[in-house]
């Protein structure tokens, strides 16, 4: 008997109440970039439960060290920090070998990007991006400079709180996630239109990293803890066989 191609595992249906809606007028750019039609819901196939597998040798030794990976003639300016945490799924299991990519502004709130015109100065020793794979326990860590806040054109006096962008690729295509991490205690958090689209206080709290003294590097760096939860994977091995068995028993 050939083995059925249906995957042994699939991912929990996405809980849309955990995420911002597509159309969020307070974040003005979303107005013309948000689909008006309902999303078509799919039962998952191999196309959705598989995803690219990354290898450690694809990443360079400094790719996860934003303090050193663009240092040219000295160290970047700003507060030295470590950011670390666990990538887990919704059922609490570690997501191993997840690709975690991060990018951010420098300490002045300026991005190394040809489209960023902010007056804040570029730092010749800071690139502002890094990437790493989570380990056997789903753990990841990188060090960087704490990003600065910056103004942006939404309303004329909107400011982004300090934040680090994340893109995470897990075991399945449906786990792909882009998000942003904020810093505990930042007074700009409560008035940020982009963070404001997140639909609940609980979900907003999940995006705010806490200062983590247990991970400070003495006489060197403070640390922040940011855990990430991806879609939960559940076994499907009961479904079809059980239905068949039950049907057999009832006949």
């Amino acid at each position, binding site marked *: 008997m*050939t083995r059925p*191609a*249906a995957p*042994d595992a699939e991912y*929990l249906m996405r*809980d849309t*109440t955990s*995420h*911002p809606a*597509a159309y969020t007028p307070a*974040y003005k*750019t*979303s*107005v013309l*970039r*948000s*689909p*008006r*039609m309902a999303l078509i819901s*799919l039962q998952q*196939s*191999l*196309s*959705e439960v*598989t*995803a*690219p597998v990354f290898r450690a040798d*694809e*990443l*360079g030794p400094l*790719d996860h060290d934003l303090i050193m*990976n663009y240092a040219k003639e000295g160290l970047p300016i700003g507060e030295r920090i470590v950011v670390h945490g666990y990538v887990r799924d*919704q*059922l609490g299991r570690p997501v191993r070998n997840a690709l975690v990519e991060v*990018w951010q502004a420098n300490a002045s709130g300026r991005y190394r*990007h040809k*489209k960023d015109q902010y007056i804040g100065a570029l730092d010749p020793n800071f*690139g*502002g*991006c890094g*990437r790493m794979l989570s380990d056997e326990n789903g753990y990841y860590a990188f060090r960087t400079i704490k990003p600065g806040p910056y103004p942006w054109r939404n309303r004329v006096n909107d400011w982004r709180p300090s934040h680090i*962008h994340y*893109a995470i690729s897990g*075991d399945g*295509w*449906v786990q*792909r996630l*882009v*998000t942003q991490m904020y810093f505990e205690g930042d007074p700009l958090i409560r008035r940020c239109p982009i*963070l404001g689209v997140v*639909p609940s206080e*609980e979900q907003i709290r*999940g*995006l705010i990293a806490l200062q983590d003294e247990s991970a400070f590097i003495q006489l060197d760096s403070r640390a922040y803890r940011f855990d*990430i939860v*991806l879609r*939960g994977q*559940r*076994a499907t091995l009961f479904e079809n066989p059980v239905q068949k068995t*039950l049907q057999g028993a009832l006949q």
Partner: protein
Amino acid sequence: MSGIVAAPGGAGLSIRETASQTAGPYVHIGLAPHAAGFDIFENNFGPVLTDEKTKGERIRIEGRVFDGIGTVLKDVLIEIWQANSQGKYAHPADRQPGKAIDPDFRGWGRACTDFETGVYRFDTIKPGPVEGRNGRFMAPHINAWIVARGINMGLNTRIYFGDEAAANAKDAVLNLIEWEQRRQTLVAERLDARADNGSALYRFDIRLQGDGETVFFDV
């Protein structure tokens, strides 16, 4: 019986997924630093999925992304994920019998829309059909994921092929789309012209909103 496995959705015993946030205007810094204008990583992930040893028909997919009033967007990042020429994904969960992984094809790439023209482009191979649910084969397709400033959560869609009309007509996912005229938004047109590298050329435009809005999936 299924109740012992897990509760569907975010309720029950599961914890909540981390909230999505927009990738923002500077997504290139993290995911495509050359596009942002600097060089930092030795190995860069990009829009070419093939090397000279990859098996399969070489194709190029190119297109543009439009907003709700037809503006060409120039700050979009698209990733694709696809099976190889035999219809097998390079992932351990793909246990389709009789198909081998192509060691020269991962099946994943990312491209940015050009800051001047708005055109994105992938060089890849045409995937084979993959077995779907209930043993039915899906028409050849490529999975695509779209992020940009103004998109609060990445959009999932599929790219089917215009020269696979018979397979497309039987595809369970396309047939799930109740509005027949919307199915065409997922079909890349095969052009008569070939790409400058000799590949077969397909055009796949994405409309985020409004007339001809692309079908996006909740996967």
